[in-house]
């Protein structure tokens, strides 16, 4: 699967989603077993809690060729670990502000709350995130180049 950067019309973004084990992952599961349609653009990594997501993971994903990242956790107050998502919310607010400030499109990094009962909401969020990132086009400026010395060696 190789996209040509010039043909943005049929460009399908590659998105990495960090889903929390207790809510959003179960929400995605519900969307699946309920046969809700959503774009096949996300690759999912299951994490114990949205608070477990280190900002390094997000930047690393962009460097490794993803066009955008979504982090999703339990709604405030529903965290399995009581307060993990509250800490995450503070961290993500600053990360999103910083990346926007240095010139990354804010649409590329998104955060959402999806509970285990919200299959429809999960499908809609994936649709929205995919749409947003499709409009931004492929992420070229953060990606590690193929002729970087490590890859040559």
């Amino acid at each position: 699967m190789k996209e040509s950067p010039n043909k943005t019309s049929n460009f399908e973004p590659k998105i990495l989603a960090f889903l929390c084990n207790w809510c959003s992952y179960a929400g995605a599961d519900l969307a699946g077993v309920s046969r809700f349609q959503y774009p096949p653009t996300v690759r999912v990594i299951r994490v114990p809690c949205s608070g477990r997501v280190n900002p390094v993971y997000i930047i690393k994903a962009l460097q490794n060729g993803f066009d955008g990242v979504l982090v999703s956790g339990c709604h405030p107050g529903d965290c399995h670990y009581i307060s993990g998502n509250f800490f995450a919310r503070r961290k993500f607010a600053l990360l999103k502000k910083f990346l926007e400030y240095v010139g990354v499109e804010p649409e590329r990094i998104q955060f959402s709350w999806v509970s285990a009962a919200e299959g429809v909401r999960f499908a809609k969020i994936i649709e929205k995130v995919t749409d947003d990132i499709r409009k931004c086009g492929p992420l070229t400026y953060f990606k590690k180049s193929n002729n970087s010395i490590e890859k040559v060696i």
Partner: protein
Amino acid sequence: MKQAEHEIMSNVERLFADKKIDLFIGYEKGTLPLRTSPCFIDDRNTVRRLVWNSCCSNNLAVYLPRLMLHRKGKNSKRIGILCKGCDSRSVVELIKEKQVDRDCLYIIGISCSGIIDSSKILSELDGEGILSYDETSDSIVVELAEGERSFPKHEYLYESCCNCAYATPTVYDILIRTVQFAPKVAGPDPNITAFAHKTREERWRIFEEETSKCIRCYACRNACPNCYCKECFAEQTKPRWIGVTNDRSDLLFYHTMRIFHQAGRCVDCGACVRACPMNINLRLFTRVLVDEVKERFGYEPGVSIKEPPPLATFSLNDKQEFMTEPD
């Protein structure tokens, strides 16, 4: 200035005589004109080496975490340290992050009227050699081969000193007052607001241009009191997050993460900017998080020992306007 210098010396001498401290960290005359170096004094006979002037730029708090490692369990004597406003705020952050024990410290606070950027003066002198220098309350007087030249201090300050609201230390055991300051409230930095109003492409171009100068010497990290991790993410090998290259993408990664690790902890002392051999305008990117943390969480690093760090706490009512909602 001279009087403050004498006050520092007599205080340090007394501390050694009373056997209160066994090490003092201060500044001594540098080997280059208009520069000072950090100095470590462990004996009352060498106290005369200490100086205090407008060129005392280093943030001395950077040495504390490593010195404290060797003091666990025997805290009979303390480490003395000279702190400007920004240094003392770094010390407060280190105390809160449990890297430094307040009981092992003796802080001599000194109110600071701003540190001058000697490179600005040197570039104006056009390679002329400085024979000696002196300073008055508002200017730097440099003696050259063909006479004296005077530079008004406020025009040659570091950028981080221009918008400083904490010239007087926030924590100290003794305070030496050199000048009286009217209390000032730090607002958002004008340079940052101007940068934020540029177009997205322009902002990215500047960020990329600045970071591409980087030679990955890690001086910015080493000069920063907040960067005390034993193993930095940039040098971790299991897993290796970041390539040890000067590939454009690795440089962006390193700077994004280093700056983000300062969120809610950076006291805007400017140590990273001064340490950078490639003159990267790091403050343009670190300062935005200082302003954002203040606006969003109402927190200013290094002001109060009791207030928990903003990312180690939360409020149920934190704003979440940035979260994605389906259409």
